[in-house]
């Protein structure tokens, strides 16, 4: 049986490559055409342009390895491998375990918009930063299910947490913890990577167990994984969630749209239909996606291992240091799969993107080698 599983897994791993090769043969590879600025198509001109200002330890960032970023008005929080950075009034302040942070490596961030408190998921528990005071919760001193907190999301009085051993919810009113795992949900694996909570639904990206949905009104669970229940992935496009190894989820309650990132492509679900995004047939720079942030039903941002991508429903744009030369690069892929490079002088600090947040029309990007502030250009 084990041998069968191994062979099947091997074949499955080969499958995307085979499909990709076949797709290229039929659909055709993207055609890259260099264009002068005056020659740019309107849809290319309409794509957002940014001037990226990058922060590293050289200018005060606690660590260059930035897992996440959170915008709170004029304050920017950076979740780094060596502390939590706060950028305010042009200066960085670093919070460490000496200040009460649960662990030096901060993985995730969420803002309680009602109270102004910031919640930080770390490799050693969950911390609340409130008015300069840090309270930390871990699996030994609280009901937190596991110390490795990959994701956190605040909705009303509830803090929803994605951990390496299931999900949980902390009730800010009663101080009670509720744990969600294989015992009380359809979660086949308990490695929860991401969470997106709204008053109606809470979605969990579960590594190896697809997308989990909790209906807050009905108190029921639903699960979205590979349609056939055997292969961990869709066999044909738009059948369902692209792959069970999910990494990030973004639910837009107003639009009732959920965007899901995996290491094997991305998906969008409107409650009835799925749409899959793969490198081979979209402008996604890589199927290996760390984070997705939906804007609405047709607009979303993707953080991949090969750059930052934006999708406007038709066209795609990618921002990154060139994978070959390292020079700043911006490329737009239109509905005809034509890729147009746009001349730019700045790019995100690195092409390995781990976190995204917005500050008005600006964007902040957490990368493996620095934090980037994308300042929107006219």
């Amino acid at each position, binding site marked *: 049986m084990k041998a069968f599983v191994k062979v099947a897994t091997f074949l499955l791993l080969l499958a995307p490559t085979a499909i990709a090769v076949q797709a290229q043969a039929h659909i055709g590879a993207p055609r890259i055409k260099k264009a002068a600025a005056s020659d740019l198509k309107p849809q290319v001109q309409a794509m957002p342009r940014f001037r990226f200002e990058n922060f590293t330890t050289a200018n005060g960032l606690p660590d260059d390895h930035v897992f996440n970023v959170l915008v709170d008005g004029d304050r920017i929080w950076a979740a780094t491998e060596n502390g939590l950075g706060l950028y305010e009034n042009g200066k960085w302040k670093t919070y460490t375990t000496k200040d009460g942070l649960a662990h030096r490596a901060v993985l995730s961030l969420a803002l309680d918009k009602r109270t102004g408190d910031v919640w930080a998921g770390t490799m050693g528990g969950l911390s609340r930063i409130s008015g300069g005071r840090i309270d930390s919760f871990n699996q030994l001193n609280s*009901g937190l299910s596991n110390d490795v907190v990959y994701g956190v999301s605040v909705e009303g009085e509830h803090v929803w947490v994605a951990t390496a051993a299931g999900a949980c919810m902390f009730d800010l009113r009663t101080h009670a913890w509720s744990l969600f795992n294989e015992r009380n949900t359809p979660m086949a694996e308990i490695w929860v990577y991401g969470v997106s909570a709204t008053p109606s639904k809470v979605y969990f990206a579960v590594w190896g167990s697809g997308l989990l949905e909790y209906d807050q009104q009905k108190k029921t669970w639903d699960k979205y994984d590979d349609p056939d229940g055997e292969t961990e992935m869709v066999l044909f496009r738009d059948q369902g969630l692209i792959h069970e190894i999910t990494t990030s989820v973004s639910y837009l309650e107003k639009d009732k749209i959920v965007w899901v990132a995996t290491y094997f492509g991305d998906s969008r679900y409107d409650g009835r239909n799925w749409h899959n995004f793969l490198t081979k047939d979209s402008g996604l720079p890589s199927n290996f996606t760390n984070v997705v942030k939906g804007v609405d039903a047709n607009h979303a941002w993707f953080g991949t291992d090969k750059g930052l991508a934006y999708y406007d429903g038709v066209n795609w744009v990618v921002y990154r240091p060139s994978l070959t030369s390292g020079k700043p690069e911006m490329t737009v892929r239109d509905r005809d799969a034509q890729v147009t490079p746009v001349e730019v002088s700045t790019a995100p600090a690195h092409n390995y993107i781990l976190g995204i947040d917005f500050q008005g029309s600006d964007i902040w990007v957490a990368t493996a080698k620095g934090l980037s502030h994308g300042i929107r250009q006219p």
Partner: protein
Amino acid sequence: MSLLRSGSARAAAVTAVVLVCSWAIAVWKDSGTVVSAATSRAQTGEVLEYASPVEMLFSLSGRQLYVLCQGTGEVRVLDATTYAERKRIQVGRSPRGLSLSANGELLYVANSWDDTISVIDTKNLSVSATWPVSAEPSSVVADRTGRYIYVANRISNDVAVLDARTGMEEKRLAAGRGASYITASPDASKLYVTHVYPNLTPLRTAPESEITVIDVRRAVVAERIALPYIAHGFHVTFSADGNLGAAAGLHPKNLPPLAHLEHGGAFADSITVFGSDVGQPVELPLDELERYSVRPFGVAITPDKSRLFVTCGGSEEVTVIDVPRMLRYVHAHPGSHATDLSASANYVVARVKVGHDPRGALLARGGTKLLVANRLDDTMSVIDTRTNRVTSTVPLAGPRENSVLRNGEQTFYTARYSFQGQIGCANCHIDSTFDGLQWDLEPDGFGRDIVDNRPIEAVKDTEPYKWNGGNPNLPTECGPRTEKFFWRAENYDDLTLTDLVVYVRSLPPRPNRSRPANGEFSAAQERGRALFNRTTDKFHNPIAEGNRCGYCHSGAKGTNQKSFDVGTKRASDNTGLLDTPQLINIAITGPYLHDGSAQTLEQIWTVFNPEDKHGRTNDLTKDELNDLIEYLRTR
């Protein structure tokens, strides 16, 4: 003063006290259910219901004085000039705080044991609405815009933000542990919140507290003013210009052995001043050798910023500070000097004796008069602030005779029985509860048997007392032991001790907010109860009787009153055999274990139970441990 000089005389006296206590308790039991020392019955059958005033407030016109009476659950409306009573307005149980709306038309009262806010229409002086809140509301303040009402919740350690029109809770802001008192800055742009229990700190480190500062415009926490060494914070006040703030606080010296009362070594009674007049916050001592300002509570600064008044519950006085001299001292001596008994002579100019357990302080007539609510006398002291003399003592209507319970409560809250009047029972049992601290008591030897202070709610019938079970009954616990090792004086006579013991035995548990009102446990609580009472582990192995939660923590109060070794003995402990503590309101009385080493309930089992000696728990999953704790929170 020593009443008990020989061992046999002591034994005889203790026996006598126990007998007297038994009689008193029997009489008290006959009087029906008594939930508060504020209510009891005289031998004539008369119900003795004490007003127990705690806070006061003038109406916006200045013509009426609202007096919040904790004992009777009333706001008494007095004529602000003559103090004649105009009306009594019944509110909820054990009200603790009150404030006016910006236009003065509404008076809000926080009813701490009812979990409600009474909204009083000040035109017709009646309750127009009662809003359900939760978590022991202890203070209430309306913002000037009329948008929000802020409520300090003592047991959830936060401030609830309510819609001012509907009373609906919109959110909670994290405050300090035991959040209790809210004061608005003079310009109403900020709120300052203090808390009566210390924030949790690592074992055997100094306590810490904070003043939580709320930005009213955004209704969020703007900053936290650290109060190092302060364990219990009370009222805050400001100068009229807003440049000087002062917070009353209690600074315990619980890290060294409690053996230096004769050197002022148990507590520093202090105020912390802050604001632009002082720069960084500075803690200033109020004590002087042989003159202690025990348990500072209420504070007020005259409009001309010449005087700062501090009510001191234990020493039953008002400490008067010359503000300009104080500021000169602060600037000349940077930093805090809280334990310097010579410092206060530089700025404390008078100590004015008032009644039992003075609480709220209110300035009147442009600061020329100070009103003080004497909680355990049912009076208000009126002090002429120019002469620092009590010009009159205004009695509130009520019984003039003291019941046994009332006497006992006065004994509990006063510091007069200790050496030089330094401390009282209420120093460590804040509002008759606990203090969240660990103490190195002398009888066991210095540095030995450092123990967490156990709560005394519903302490009746949980003997023996002390963690080592060494005291067989309350007369022993409250009498000779306390006198010898805490008070360093032997001042109780038999009747005083009897009164005290009757009072302590009468202390009820505060309402448990985790217990469902309809009695039906949640699924998690029900699963936890099953784990608490289980007799076999998950591998179907029987659990020895002494290793079941429900065996040692049996009965309504959660103790079988026996001692066990639960594997928590430290090298500094003389014994590992420990009295089983009661579980009453266990969720809010941390830290836990005999030495306070477990900061949370979870840590009792995740950290301090490696060998399953404190119950069989290592077979439990995290979910199950959470369930067990959910059940414990209902106890």
